[in-house]
């Protein structure tokens, strides 16, 4: 197949459709510089390699061979979806960019554009079951349509490049393009129409609505055009938040343990004969404050989002943290310094996590979040610092008491 794109210096090997990332954590910039953007489908459709589990065969077109994809979810597709809601690096759950066939598409069959994040690709093919379609998968580095569009990867340039590289100009020269609505942040439908001479339609927000949209003659209802962020949409985000923040729960144990030791004279190390169970209980009593703040910010906040008083996420989170604090104070009954420390920790942790949920929410603008952070972040940081200072003061008092022999 002739390659209309300028050759990149290091062409990716054709049998590396799912090349895993091996870069160091801090090397985002070097990674982008060192790895040239693939200039054509980095998947060898003509190979006799085993079919991916989501493909059911191969299709010959005038521009070469491609894969025919299944339109029913299999067990591994369901596992991929579950995994995408748990793992940190979900961008690894991806398919190779390029053109795929669904059913028996012809020269006039519409082309549905999507991202190479596998759950996005899956949602599209499942929504089009029992239909014929071309699926054009853009290289979004394993990021979903909306986020990739916001970063420009699901963009005009990538779409035009992928249209050329896939051979669609020969395979289906005048077929309509159907863009996902949430791709509109990166792709201007009129620009694509102008550049390709094709009719470009903007499909609904959710792939699941595609059937109804197609059956109604490509007319979207108002509901199809709106992003939903109901209880269900918010709840599925929680497992991944907890997995990603699990280290924070453990981190909160450090001051808790230090605090518990400080409560006994003769530390460190733990004095012989010290009651370890009592120490653990004290550590847990303090830990319950920041851990509760984490729980409130990661679980309670997304679930209760619309019904929590206040409008700013940081204020909503602080309120949840304060609610936890009230319960914790009543239950733990610690002395004043410990109580102050725990209260500040729970409140600032919950508030910080809540404002971080702006990245998962569907409704916050960058400017609004920046304005909020300017006020909320110093307060949250101050709360956390004061919480640690109060603990440190308690420890210092305990040490002084131990040294002086007075309680």
């Amino acid at each position, binding site marked *: 197949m002739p390659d209309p794109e300028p050759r990149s210096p290091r062409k990716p090997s054709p049998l590396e459709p799912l090349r895993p990332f091996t870069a160091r954590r801090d090397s985002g910039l070097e*990674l982008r510089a060192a790895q040239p953007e693939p200039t054509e489908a980095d998947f060898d459709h003509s190979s006799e390699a085993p079919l991916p589990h989501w493909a059911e065969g191969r299709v010959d077109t005038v521009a070469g061979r491609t894969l025919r994809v299944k339109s029913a979810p299999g067990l591994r597709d369901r596992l991929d979806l579950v995994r995408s809601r748990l793992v940190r690096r979900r961008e690894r759950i991806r398919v190779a960019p390029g053109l795929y066939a669904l059913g028996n598409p012809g020269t006039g069959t519409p082309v549905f554009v999507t991202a190479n994040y596998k759950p996005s690709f899956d949602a599209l093919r499942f929504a089009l079951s029992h239909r014929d379609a071309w699926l054009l998968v853009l290289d*979004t580095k394993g990021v979903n349509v909306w986020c990739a569009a916001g970063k420009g*990867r699901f963009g005009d340039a990538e779409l035009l490049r992928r249209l050329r590289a896939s051979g669609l100009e020969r395979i289906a020269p005048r077929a309509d393009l159907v863009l996902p609505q949430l791709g509109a*942040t*990166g792709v201007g439908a009129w620009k694509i129409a102008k550049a390709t001479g094709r009719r470009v339609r903007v499909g609904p927000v959710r792939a699941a609505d595609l059937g109804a949209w197609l059956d109604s003659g490509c007319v979207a209802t108002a509901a199809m055009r*709106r992003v939903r962020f109901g209880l269900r949409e918010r709840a599925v985000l929680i497992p991944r938040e907890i997995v990603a923040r699990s280290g924070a729960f453990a981190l909160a144990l450090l001051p808790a343990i230090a605090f518990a030791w400080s409560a006994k004279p003769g530390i460190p190390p733990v004095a012989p004969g010290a009651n370890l169970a009592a120490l653990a209980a004290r550590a847990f009593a303090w830990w319950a404050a920041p851990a509760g703040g984490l729980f409130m910010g990661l679980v309670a906040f997304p679930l209760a989002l619309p019904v929590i008083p206040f409008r700013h996420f940081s204020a909503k989170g602080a309120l949840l943290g304060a609610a936890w604090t009230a319960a914790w104070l009543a239950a733990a009954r610690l002395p004043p310094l410990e109580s102050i420390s725990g209260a500040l920790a729970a409140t600032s942790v919950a508030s910080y996590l809540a404002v971080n949920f702006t990245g998962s929410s569907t*409704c*916050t603008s960058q*400017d609004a979040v920046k304005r909020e952070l300017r006020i909320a972040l110093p307060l949250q940081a101050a709360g956390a610092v004061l919480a640690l200072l109060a603990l440190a003061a308690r420890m210092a008092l305990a040490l002084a008491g131990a040294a002086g022999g007075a309680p």
Partner: protein
Amino acid sequence: MKTRSFTYPGNGRSLAVDAARCRACGACFEVCPHAAIEPGPDGVARVAEREACMECGACARACPFGAISVEAGVGCAAAILSGLRRGTAPDCGCGDGCGDGPPCC
């Protein structure tokens, strides 16, 4: 309508419609995920609910006549903080393979 529109304080400040340039084609209403922008009685675009606008920039990109302007960006605290830390523009790092920061977008 089933969907309740989430609004946020401070949203949509930069969204502006130049009614003189608008040809009432409807491309902007079509792509707005929050119905923040809607047709007026004459079909010309107008801001319907400013605080529902998350400034994603879809409407401005969809407009063939340059009638809409908005300062677009991802509204993600993690992205903004990561940008502050690195001294760059807000970037959540999603899909860059560096996996820096909390889960986002």
